[in-house]
Structures are given as C-alpha cells and as structure tokens.
C-alpha cells in the first residue's frame, strides 16, 4: 500500500505530457466558446450598436431568459432525457400567477409560491411517468407540452374571458416582488435586467453541482449508463425526477421574470422556446445520448442565440434569418460533438 500511495502522487512517466491546449480542446464547451467569440466579433465589426451600452444590455437580456432554462435542460440532457414542456411551462407559471392574483385576488406571494409548486409537480410527474413506464421522455414531455399549450389558452379563456393577463401591476404588493424578478441594474453604464444575474448564478450553481457534487456525478452516470449506475447504487429515480423538476423550476423562474418584467403574459408565451433551449444545450456540447455535456456550454449557446437575435436586428437583416442560422449552428454543433466524443473515447 505504501509504495502504491507513493507512486500515485508522482506523474506517470508513460504519460506523454499533455499540452494545455489539448486539455482545453477536450472540454465539451470548447466549440460553443469559439462560436460565441466568432458571433461576437462579427456583429461588433459589422454593426455599430452591437457593442454600445444599450446594445450589450439588450442581447444579454434576451440571452439570459433563454439561458436560465437552457442550463437546466443541459443538466437533464446530460442525465439522458429530453424535456419539451419547458417552453410552455414558462407560460403556464406566468398565467397561473396572473389569473390567481388578478382574477381571484389571491395574495401575490402565495400565488408565486403556488405556481412554483405547480411547476415542480408537473416536472415530477414528467419524471415519474418516464421512469415508471420506460417510455422515451421525448414522447412523454411532448404530451405534457401539448396538454399545457392547450390548457394555457383554453383554461385562461374560460376563466378570465381572454388569453392575456391584464392589470398585473395593480395587484397589491406587485411593487414589492417586482424587483426580484423584473428588476434591473447598471454595470459600467449598461442597464441590464436582473435576469442576467439569475442567469449567471444558475450557470455557476449548475456547473458546481455537475462537476463537484454527488448528484452531479449521478447525473453523468444515469445519462451515460442507466442500468450500470443503478447496479452500483446510484439513486436512479431520484436523480431523474430531480432533473425534470429542475427544468420545470427553471421554466417557472423565466415565467416569473417575463410576468414581472412586462406585467403581462399570454397563452402563447414560451411556446416554441423548448427547441431553442435544446439547441442551446446541444450547441454547448451536450450529447443527445446523454452522459456528456456542460452547463457553461449551454450558457454559451444561449449567448450565441441572444447575440445573433439582436445582431440580426442591428444589421437590419430580416429577423427570420435567425431560425436558419440556428439550424445551421445546431447541425454544425452535432457534427463537432460527434467528433469530440470519438476523440474522448479514443485511446489516449
């Protein structure tokens, strides 16, 4: 034992010294970092407003709202599952608070907490159904997606007679809670939404959890080899259900940010964003098969999305080019990921 311990600390002479560059290139988020840098440089050079104080604030804001959920979706994808109900969850939680406060006169704090409970419950339900039935999460959450999309519009219409929440800012204590979700702050003269801070905090927490905690280890494990991780005692059900609850919770947070920033949400809020979240996660290096990826990568993916969305506006191009660009990014990212994964699995 003593000799073994002694040698363990030494650098093994059979290992060719790996250069720092090679080590960095093995990280899952490298591709998205390079892409983000290119997008940033392109719009900085091509348009004047992009790097202006208001410009930076604008693309950071839109990145942050996508990024919060994208990071959660990345964790879920590393854990080997999909969630298509995240976009509508944004609308559902916003509408819940809106209807409960403006129509039923419920206390706004209670409403916010109830909406969170509802979101987490739906997330847990997604997870439990996936795990207990063995159906692909793609199908299960596609179902949840359509149920929520329908309920968002139909139920809201049935209760308040229209599909959009109005008079939110007249609700008592709205001003108390508004700064938490919809506030803004200034940095170097740039005014930004508070959601940027939420985004940073969530990315940092997710990275910490993923790389340095037991649940993080389990997330990689259940995504990489579900049966094997169960055999060695990883709590499979708890890990997966926890991940579904995390994406639902992130959807709730963005729902609150949307509601308190603009004082309104409607039945269509968030619909379609679920694909953007997944694209961001994949661009950020998450494998579709699970077991590999990074939270920082997904955050960078969201930055690419935000920068492109606003950059296209500043460049006075047709904003429909955004979708085409995203499609190209997605395909490019999948190809790069494939290559990275092969390298990671190749004998060193």
């Amino acid at each position: 034992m003593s000799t073994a311990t002694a040698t363990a600390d030494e650098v093994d002479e059979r290992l060719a010294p790996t250069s720092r560059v090679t080590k960095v290139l093995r990280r899952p988020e490298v591709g998205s970092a390079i892409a983000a840098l290119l997008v940033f440089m392109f719009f900085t050079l091509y348009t004047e407003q992009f790097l202006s104080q208001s410009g930076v604030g604008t693309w950071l804001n839109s990145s942050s709202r996508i990024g919060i959920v994208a990071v959660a979706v990345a964790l879920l994808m590393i854990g080997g599952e999909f969630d298509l109900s995240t976009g509508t969850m944004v609308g559902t939680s916003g509408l819940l608070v809106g209807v409960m406060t403006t129509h039923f006169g419920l206390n706004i704090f209670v409403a916010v907490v109830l909406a969170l409970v509802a979101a987490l419950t739906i997330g847990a339900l997604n997870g439990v159904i996936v795990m207990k039935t063995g159906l692909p999460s793609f199908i299960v959450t596609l179902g949840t997606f359509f149920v929520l999309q329908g309920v968002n519009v139909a139920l809201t219409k049935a209760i308040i007679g229209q599909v959009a929440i109005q008079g939110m800012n007249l609700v008592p204590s709205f001003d108390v809670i508004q700064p938490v979700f919809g506030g803004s702050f200034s940095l170097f003269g740039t005014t930004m939404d508070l959601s940027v801070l939420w985004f940073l905090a969530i990315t940092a927490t997710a990275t910490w959890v993923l790389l340095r905690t037991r649940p993080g280890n389990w997330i990689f494990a259940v995504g990489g080899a579900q049966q094997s991780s169960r055999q060695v005692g990883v709590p499979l059900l708890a890990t997966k259900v926890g991940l579904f609850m995390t994406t639902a919770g992130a959807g709730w947070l963005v729902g609150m940010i949307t509601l308190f920033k603009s004082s309104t949400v409607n039945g269509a809020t968030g619909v379609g964003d679920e694909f953007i979240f997944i694209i961001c996660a994949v661009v950020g290096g998450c494998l579709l098969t699970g077991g590999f990826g990074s939270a920082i990568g997904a955050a960078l993916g969201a930055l690419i999305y935000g920068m492109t969305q606003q950059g296209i506006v500043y460049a006075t191009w047709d904003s429909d080019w955004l979708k085409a660009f995203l499609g190209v990014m997605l395909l490019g990212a999948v190809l790069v990921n494939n290559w990275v994964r092969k390298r990671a699995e190749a004998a060193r």
Partner: protein
Amino acid sequence: MSADKPGTSQPDMDRDAASTEGAGHEDTGHEETGHEGTGHAAGAETPSLPPPGTAIIEVTDIGKSYGQVIALSDVTTTVRTGEVTCVLGDNGAGKSTFIKILSGAHEHSQGTFVVDGVSRHMSSPRAALALGIATVYQDLAVVPLMPVWRNFFLGSETTKGFGPLKRLDVDFMRRTAKSALADMGIDLRDVDQPIGTLSGGERQCVAIARAVYFGARVLILDEPTAALGVRQSGVVLKYIARARDRGLGVVFITHNPHHAYPVADRFMLLRRGRSMGDFPKAEMPLDELVKMMAGGAELDALTDELDRSLPDSEADNDKETPAEVQER
C-alpha cells in the same frame, strides 16, 4: 434516450426503488450527508475478514421457480473466505439464476440461504452489499464516458465540507482509486481517462478492485472472462487469485472449465437447473470436469473443440512472436 431502458428492466428497477426507500438513508435524494454515502466504504480501511476457510455463505437445497418454470432446484454449496468457488454450467444451466439469488437480485423460493450463520431472504442487491456480498456483473456496471476514478467511486462518492459547500473530495478519490488499483496489481497510467478507453480486461479488473475496496467479503463474478481474449482472461484470473489471497470468498461463474480450473478451490456444477454436485478440486481432475459439464452426446464435438482451444494459452505466445518479428 438511453439504450438500456427497455420495458424488461422496469419491474426490476421499480422494485429496487421501493426497496431503497425501505433501506432509508442513502437513496432518498440530494440532501443526505456525505458520510452515509460512504457507508459500506467504511470497511475498506479496516477489513474485517474472518480467517481463511470460514464459511460466509451456506446455501442448502436452494431453488427458484418463476411460476410454472423451475429455473433452479436443490443447489447446495458453501462459500468460504480465501477460497474460489467455481460455478460451472453450460448456457441455460441456471448459472444466472443462481447468482441472482446470491447477489440479492432475486429471492429464492426454496431451501435456505444462510449468511454468517443467519438465514436470510435478500430482496435487493443493496441488501446483499450491506452483508459484504458484491457482484461484478457481466456488463461491469461502469459508465464508459466517465473517468476511471469517478467510476470507481460511483454511488459511494466521498465528500468533504458541509451544507451547500459539501463537495466531492476529488483529490482523495483520484489518489485512492489509483492506489487501490495498484494494490490489486493494476497499474493505470491515468485515472482521468474515460473508462471506455480501457480494454475489457482492464475494466473487469477495475470493477473487481472497486468491489474489494468497498469492503466486499464475497465477490461474485458473472462470467468475467466470457468476452475476453486468451491473454486478457489470464490477467483477470490473476486478479481473481489475488482477491482470494486477500481473504475474500470468490464465486466465479463461468462456462469455461479451462478458465475455472487454475483458480478454483471447489467446483459446483449446474446442469438443466440442477446441481450435479459440489466437489473439491482434489477430487476433480480437469478431464472429469469437462466430461461432466458436457454430458454424453455433445462430448465428442466438445472434446474436439477443446483439443484445439486448450493449448491456446501457451501456444498464443509462441505464435505471436514470429508474427511480431515479421512485422519488424
């Protein structure tokens, strides 16, 4: 999304989830404390192995039926510390059923299963693990994309710090994985490489070393040499012997008598779900073993086949040398 999520594995999983709820602490979620997680690792530093030859598991007339189907019946054997008990049988002989009972994956329906003198009915792999009975499955229960050290500690990670700062003790785990592997004679270059980059034999050895480190007293190996080449099989057999020398009781399941013979102390033969007896090595020459396994009609064909494959282990080295010379 995961490939290994077919319906067949579901009942198994549900039962396990239920049983872990019963077990209480380790699986309940993200909030448990780090020390509980290392529960069965506690034995690692102070191995409490009884002297060699002590019986740990005694099964008497054990059997298992699934409804009308009798998969296994009347099996009697003893697993002792410092001994390798070899369970031999052809495909469909009931080997898998037998190890599923030993490893706690399935409960037996007949006979008695005594561990440390106490009769048991084990309902989950976790219950077996708590008694020091560890199983190295054929698929090795490793996650290919994860580094060796993360795989080594998977499910039993050590942590440091408290509250929200509770984190993986990465340095400790890296060092320990490397030294525990070195203890078993496995010299890895880099514990940070994804375990998928190791050869089949190396992975098998990591799985064995992991079970030994986490306080296994009985090691159940499910066909560890089945998918390996001749030389790799030899390496794995060496580690089996090493685990035995460290005082573990080893149950080695195989259908290859030539792999079984060098390391086994006793043989338990299964055929069509029944035990054909439990023999000490002294009473069982290799020829006899092969004959008993094969049975009448297939024997001739099998002997032919074995005559060709038997000298492989020596011949392989000799054959390879000229080839290597030619390459140069």
